[in-house]
């Protein structure tokens, strides 16, 4: 199976988030960057599918030149190819992002064949627009299942002419919904679908040397515009010492009881 996973470079934040002076972005001066957690799981899920059924995983990101770092992270885990749609560092809106991804997918499919499964994170960790996966599915005319927590791909299944069949499950109001879709399809996944692996040293060494397929993405304004970020005020949380040694036990039991974990 041929899989595409779209990932986003996002700041790795601590307990308190700082916002830039103009109020339009997270202040990343002291922060590192990572892949959105949902997308880390998407990468892991894609690699597992290829481990089971063969094929290859392509990771794609739209971002600044530094986003190459996140692509290499995915390559280190076992992704096979990486595509960087390189921006000038400006933040793109979801509609423009989806359009650029769709164009890149069409380009790629014209020469290298179709993707059977396109995975996205349910929403980006920073902007949380919940849109890109759905917009891409719509533009490509593909079925889309969102917020998926479990996934079974069967390349041999599905109706005549399909690339296979997929069962995707998600949780909804205490129940589990299961969707069967014919491939190709778009799935947006949520953290918890799997426990992503860590990169091995040989994986990192391979990723370091792997070529990236880079193309420039010229900035397109989005109908959706960010006006202001505000950090909500919250009471400062601190650890509370319940007691020392055996003296702490009653207070601890009370607390566990309160939390309802003592059933």
């Amino acid at each position, binding site marked *: 199976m041929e899989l595409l996973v779209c990932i986003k470079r996002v700041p790795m934040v*601590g307990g*308190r988030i700082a916002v830039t002076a103009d109020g339009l972005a997270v202040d990343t001066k002291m922060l590192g960057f990572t892949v959105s957690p949902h997308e880390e799981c998407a990468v892991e899920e894609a690699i597992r599918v290829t481990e089971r059924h063969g094929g290859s995983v392509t990771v794609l990101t739209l971002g600044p030149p530094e986003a190459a770092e996140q692509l290499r992270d995915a390559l280190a885990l076992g992704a096979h190819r990486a595509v960087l749609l390189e921006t000038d560092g400006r933040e793109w809106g979801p509609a423009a992002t989806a359009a650029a991804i769709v164009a890149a997918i069409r380009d790629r499919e014209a020469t290298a064949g179709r993707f059977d499964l396109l995975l996205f994170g349910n929403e980006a960790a920073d902007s949380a627009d919940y849109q890109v996966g759905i917009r891409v599915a719509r533009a490509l005319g593909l079925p889309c299942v969102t917020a998926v927590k479990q996934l079974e791909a069967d390349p041999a299944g599905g109706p005549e002419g399909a690339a296979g069949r997929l069962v995707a499950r998600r949780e909804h109001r205490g129940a589990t919904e299961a969707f069967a879709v014919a491939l190709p399809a778009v799935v947006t996944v949520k953290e918890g679908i799997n426990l992503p692996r860590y990169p091995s040293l040989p994986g990192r060494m391979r990723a370091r040397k792997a070529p990236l397929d880079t193309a420039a993405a010229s900035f397109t304004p989005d109908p959706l515009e960010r006006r202001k970020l505000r950090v909500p005020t919250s009471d400062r949380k601190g650890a509370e010492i319940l007691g020392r040694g055996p003296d702490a036990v009653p207070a601890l039991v009370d607390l566990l009881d309160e939390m309802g974990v003592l059933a």
Partner: protein
Amino acid sequence: MSDIPTRASVVVVGAGIVGNSVAFHLADLGWRDIVLVDKGPMPNPGGSTGHASNFIFPIEYSRMMMELTRDSTRQYAELGVLTTSGGIEVARTEARLQEFRRRAGAATAWGIPSEMLSPEEVAKLVPYLDPNVILGGLHFPTVGVVDSLRAGTIFRDRATGLGALRVVAGVEVEGIEVAPRGATGRGPGSRVTGVRTSAGLIETEHCVLCGGVWTPRLARMAGTHLPLTPIVHQMISVGPVPLFADTVGEIAYPIVRDVDTNMYERQHGGDMEVGSYAHRPILVEADDIPSNEEAALSPTEMPFTQEDFDPQLAEAVELMPGLLGDEAVGIRYAINGLISMTPDGHPLLGETPDVEGLWSAAASWIKEGPGIGRAVAEWMTAGRSEIDVHEADVARFYPVQQTRQHVRARARESFNKMYGIVHPAEQWESERGLRVAPMYARELELGAVCFQTAGWERPQWYASNERLLATYGDRVLPRSGEWESRWWSPIVNAEHLAMRDACGLVDLTAFAVFDVTGPGALDALQHLAVAQMDVPVGKVVYTPFLDDAGGFKADLTIMRLGPAQFRVVTGAAHGLADRKWIVDHLPDDGSAVLTDLTSAWTTIGLWGPRARTVLERVSDDDVSHAGFPFGTCRTIEVDGLAVLASRISYVGELGWELYCPMESGLRLFDTLFAAGQPHGLVPVGIGVYGTTGRIEKGYRAYGNELTPDYNPVEAGMARPSVKTADFVGKEAHLGHRSAPPAATLCTLTLTDPRVGGPEARYPLGGEPILTTTGERIEDELGRPSYVTSAGAGPSIGTHLLLAYLPPALAVEGTELRVEYLGERQAVRVAVAGSTPLFDPTNERVRS
């Protein structure tokens, strides 16, 4: 907000391993009302202690660091947080194997078990290491790992248990309140009056900065500078390692230091930690460290920059292919950990010179933390610490060495040398030319090869003297060994011989020069000096200063220029510490003041049998032996300049130290140089002044022979009688004189430099002295015998070593061994005591 005390006897800032140790040891020494403040939560407030790899190798290049590590290890063991794992340094190059032989020698000198291993023997202890990658290993069986956070908690609990300590967590220090030192004669400066925190003001007279990477910011709050920069040390943790699944405890295999790649591998439970000092130096500003709340992990666990670490992966996998090359083993944790770097790699300990009551205990590793805490607490309590930490005295940096640019440049330069093969004389490449003599340009024309001391460029030898090599032939004791030929030239020995044959001109501009003046000046210096200071005007006094225990605190000369004016001259390296010692002991009533004239006066040494002839050509003053006796000083006129001449010598020759204002130094140099040409005068470098000329005369050097561990009786410097006036250390000194010394400083000669091969090899200092059967030598106080200074004695015709020996061995003619590069070379005690090997009756000096 926490309810915090409004008054404390001392506020310790920072609850890392150092702050916790300082707090405990202060409590243990009787301090009460101690407050320990940290902005972070306990037990891991987020400093460098929290992410440390926590392993301890016992061996160091500096004896001080080794002793601090030894003491810390003992404390960790007593706290029950030490696990001994053993540790192996592995060599990938021949040069490293030679370095291991030097390190093994140092280990022997300090009584640390070590053993050279073949690659196969290494692989036996570390089964996942590929022996084909290495040439050998150096095994230290006593290497261990510690739980430094747990140690900190126990320290706090013990101090709290004594009723001595209040711990205030989650409270940030926002200011350090200071007031003028007052109307004392101690010069400018201020004193601590309080520590302002986010929870209110704590009044106190003592504040100890143990803030690690934040210390520079804290120091600025008090209006002073601490030369320290945070720098990144990258570390990854890889697991789960199948081999470690069944091991019990945190560590079951020896720690490996892959020193030629600047990396280490250390088991941590089911994981292997791989740390690196090989990546580019990544410097951070103290103000740019995120707060506890903003940090993704902790403030000092900065985001990992993968691209910096990636290039080193191949070498790690190459060394441990089966373990680190396992595709199923993943990088589970990776950080850019912040650690502290100083311009010379040593910690910053002691009271800051600018602010009374503001103490620093910064730039420590885990391996020294408890020992540093104890040393600083002792220093605060008794004025001295059991372990001599003068090398780490925070008062060692001149202003030019405290700038941000200097600190960053030196940190950048030294970072990748963390596991490097560093020669003891190795010079810095960055930040040169900070302080130069007025005749510097002339010296460069003469081909001066400069070494840097305390920021000063000092000619070590002059390339223009190369012609002398033909004159002296083999008398220059040529070297063929690569190691001892580094940072050395046979020209040094040629200059030495030319000085002894004719005369030499030595640039001594780097001397630290202070005037102590005022009606109380005599009493003030009398109170510090061992020698009698109530001497006639025009006398030059050479004297040590002692600490309360009678150990050496300083070694300097003092000229009495007037009834109430004394000029103190001391070495550049210890100038600031000596100045602080004097200022700290000046009377409160202002009757004596110290003025630092270091930047105002230049000094030129003129020595050799023809020194008088040369000086007579340019001065009409009477400089005859009768007219200008040894040990006197006065102002004479030299070619139109008023020059303070002092007839003393550190090289054992007739001659003078000639002092004149900086702006006239070039003229004085040119005048003397020209006048000396017909008489064979040559420019002579510090290689002669500091080593060859000195050692032939058995002259002691502060920091080498003269340290707080030894006393004047042992150093052979006790005078026939003790003055009646009281002085610091007198009581202890009288005690030392009343009993036979536990050790005596001796001069040894190298019997045969050719051992273990055709090449002559010359020890450089620091090597262990052994008996003829290879036994270590310790005196009854447990002090090992090692080479305190080593250098050529061209006029004697052999290589000379100085070393303290116990009485039974401190006998002329005793045969011993020195261990150098794994070989044992025969040495003989040539002199026990201070009689010079060259010109034993000092006729030349007094001619």
